[in-house]
């Protein structure tokens, strides 16, 4: 997020004249709309906004947002975005990546942009597949995913994007999914966070990995399978008939029944976005036994990288003579006089 004067815009102002080239029915459309709906609510200024992406279906995103956009190379968007923010910290930077772009080829850069805490919003569209290259399994594909490159099913265990983010030091971790009505709120929270804000967005690749998130994302039965977390609110789901409590014996979370709305009696936890230990448990909750934890899982800002850099530059610069002539003549010098060539 950035301190800025709010600008009046509408959703239309954020649309480009470019023909959107995702497959019909792709979850990316819903995310695009959610972002275009969110930006006016943030008072964002198109001239001051930069969308940076890597390579993949999701990374086409900048072409469809009427702001500044940089579609870079595979996996490296965090590095470009870091350079942009260091050169001009006033820019409001959104980074768009995917599970392959951000966790496979670009895992290293994603780690470091989060660790350094460069102030930007990072949206990782997780569709658990390589879409643009026609359907190979990705680092988030579940074991047994059959694809052209794994015809007998994948055997490697998937990475968990939010656990990764938290593990490398992210100070904001959130989850949403493409068609969720709550997605704009999650994005607003990410924007409000000063520092690197990581948002995993489950995204339906209707062509190569159709409906893999239906287990929790489909509207029917959603309240039983989605736990939307809110700071200061009890961790309740299933129409407030169930909640998450701490299993003190095993030091893990457990699902408890809430009788007559008395969640306190059931020991249901109140979500505290600054509790890093609980956040670690939330990102790791195995879906099935537990609902899918969604919303802002963790939000505890720290000074940003670019502030630290600017600070150092200010300290190093204060009171210094910045003439180039002085710089060039630094160190021990001698003078050769006009005649005779003898040094003085």
């Amino acid at each position, binding site marked *: 997020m950035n301190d800025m004067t709010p600008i009046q815009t509408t959703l239309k102002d954020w649309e480009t004249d470019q023909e959107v080239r995702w497959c019909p029915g792709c979850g990316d459309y819903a995310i695009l709309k959610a972002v275009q709906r969110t930006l006016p609510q943030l008072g964002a200024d198109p001239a001051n906004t930069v969308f940076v992406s890597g390579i993949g279906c999701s990374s086409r995103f900048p072409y469809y947002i009427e702001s500044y956009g940089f579609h870079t190379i595979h996996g490296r968007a965090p*590095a*470009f975005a870091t350079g942009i923010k260091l050169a001009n910290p006033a820019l409001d930077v959104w980074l768009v990546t995917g599970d392959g772009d951000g966790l496979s080829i670009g895992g290293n850069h994603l780690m470091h942009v989060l660790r350094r805490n460069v102030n930007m919003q990072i949206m990782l569209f997780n569709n658990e597949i390589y879409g643009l290259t026609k359907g190979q399994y990705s680092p988030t594909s579940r074991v047994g995913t059959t694809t052209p490159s794994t015809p007998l099913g994948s055997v490697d265990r998937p990475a968990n994007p939010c656990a990764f983010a938290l593990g490398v030091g992210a100070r904001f971790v959130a989850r949403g999914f493409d068609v969720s009505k709550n997605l704009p709120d999650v994005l607003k929270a990410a924007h409000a966070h000063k520092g690197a804000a990581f948002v995993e967005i489950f995204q339906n690749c209707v062509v190569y990995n159709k409906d893999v998130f239906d287990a929790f994302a489909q509207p029917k039965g959603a309240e039983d399978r989605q736990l939307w977390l809110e700071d200061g609110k009890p961790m309740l789901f299933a129409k407030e008939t169930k909640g998450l409590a701490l299993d003190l014996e095993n030091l893990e979370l457990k699902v408890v029944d809430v009788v007559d709305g008395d969640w306190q009696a059931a020991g249901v936890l109140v979500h505290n976005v600054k509790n890093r230990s609980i956040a670690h448990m939330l990102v790791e909750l195995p879906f099935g036994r537990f609902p899918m934890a969604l919303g802002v899982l963790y939000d505890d800002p720290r000074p940003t990288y670019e502030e630290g850099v600017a600070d150092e530059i200010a300290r190093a610069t204060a009171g210094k003579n910045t003439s180039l002539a002085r710089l060039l003549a630094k160190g021990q010098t001698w003078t050769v006089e006009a005649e005779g060539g003898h040094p003085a």
Partner: protein
Amino acid sequence: MATQVADKPAQTSPTAAPDAVVVRFAGDSGDGMQLTGGQFTLSTALAGNDLATFPDFPAEIRAPQGTLFGVSAFQINFGSREINTAGDAPDVLVAMNPAALKVNLSALKPGGLIIADTGEFTQRNLDKAKYASNPIEDGSLAKWNVLAFDISALTVEAVKDFGLGNKDALRCKNMWTLGLALWMFDRDRQPLIDWLNAKFARKPELAGANIAALNAGHAYGETAELSGPLKKLHIDPVPAAPGLYRTITGAEAVSLGLVAGAQLAGLHMFFGGYPITPASSILHYLVKMKEFGVTTFQAEDEIAAICSAIGASYAGQLGVTSSSGPGIALKGEAMGLAVMTELPLVIVNSQRGGPSTGLPTKTEQSDLYQAVYGRNGDAPIPVISARSPSDVFEVAIEACRIAVEYMTPVILLTDGYIANAAEPWKVPDPETFAPFKAQFLTEKNDGDRLLPYARDTKGARPWIKPGTPGLMHRIGGIEKNQGTGNIDYSPENHQAMTDARKAKIDGIVVPDQDVSLGDAKGRLAVVGWGSTYGPIRRAVDNARAKGLSVSHIHVRNIWPLPRNLGDLLKGFDKVLVPEMNTGQFKTVLRDQLLVDAESLTKTSGQPFQIAELDAAIAKFFDGVPGNEGGAVEPNSQQLPNPVAGYDDGSLKAGGDAQ
């Protein structure tokens, strides 16, 4: 300016001083040889000699004392005439311990002088240096002059009044040795004394002890002259243009040149780097120049280093990245993006021996193909090279100019030798450089339309900073429409854009090629680029002194080549291209100019010796009067072997450094 060794061994009679001398100081990495060399260099500069040095900076992590791989050395060539290289082989070797003697002895000229500290030639140190018997006593040094005495004891004696412990007293050995060296070359001690007083202003006993050691070493010279092989030599000052001078290494000069270039462009500079030998020192210098509008970023890898620099350029700063061959290879894809998005960027390659990890601490020019041809797709990038530590300052400014004026990445080729070598530098007046202020587009450039890929007369597109109201647009690595920059895969458009990118680079205005030494026509042109400048210049000078029709042509702009180069080379019967690779520039010349260039190649990790080039030139003049002389054995040891690593913290040379 830089240096070469005298053709004959140094004369030791005060009446017949040679016009150049090579001295190598070698000791344990804890002995302060770099400091000794640095102060001797300064004294040499103050005496008005031209000089070139090849320091090998000690590792921050100290190697075990007394071992062969713990040796640190510093070579200086200085003279009363123009000096172009750090010298083929030393005339004088100062060996502070057996390991230093062992590592450096093979380089010493026959008849050269060894000054050795017998106090360190103990059985333990001889064992560590893997000497079966004491070389000072066993006659194995017969072909050299040896001056061996107990410098350790003499130093301890000289500083005994200052109440230092034995260890601290012995630390003054390097000043004692320097005192002797100053006596040998008839130098003024006062600047050194002033420097020591300033350095130890808060520890007067250390200042006093070091000065006492310096004076004792100096006084020892007088005594030794009476009894032994030591003779005082006076090397006259070299005629030099009036002005302010300092010594400079290539790594410093490239850093200063980049800062100057950014200022001339009116831009802040962003430097994205990742530690790698021998390029890290550029990051180390720039990090101390924050007040000149420099932001440095130590990235997580080479790829992030260049990508962050491109991001900064996109946001309106001058992006710079630097590395050596292996790191440059990693940056290749991002360079293509900079070509595609037509953003200014300077990529500095301090070349080292390759392929792969190769020879991290040794020099080579083998990344020329990589620079000129080494990317996917048709991705032309201008390439410019530096010939010496002081030259790289101007070259860096030129790289910035091309990048900004043509909206393009530029590759600047330097090498490990240039990065670490030092030479005197006439400090330029920044006012004398023509500014090339970067222009940013602030309003739509086609009526009410924005065309991010409209081109100016140079073929450059406008630079549009994000944050500029009303100019929102999208760029990326996918082929773009000629004007709007929107995605456009159409055949005609890709053809047009490929042509436009090529035409822009081909059309870069580079200065006409001049002849560095000799005539514009003749029998043989020796064409060089990069750090071979020094030895080629000396060898061509030698050949011309023999009356041979040889000219030296030194090419700075590798891509595009100077437009008159083809015609110029047609004026010569033969073209010889000496390079520290297997003939890469020769290939470019043949490809671009259809010239029958012949190669002289060397890939030992060491610069050319002048003698090697003398011999190669001589072959073109068989039977020509004046062209006498025989074949030359290549000497792989003519420069100090940087066994102790570099100041970037890379460990011992030879293989560990990355």
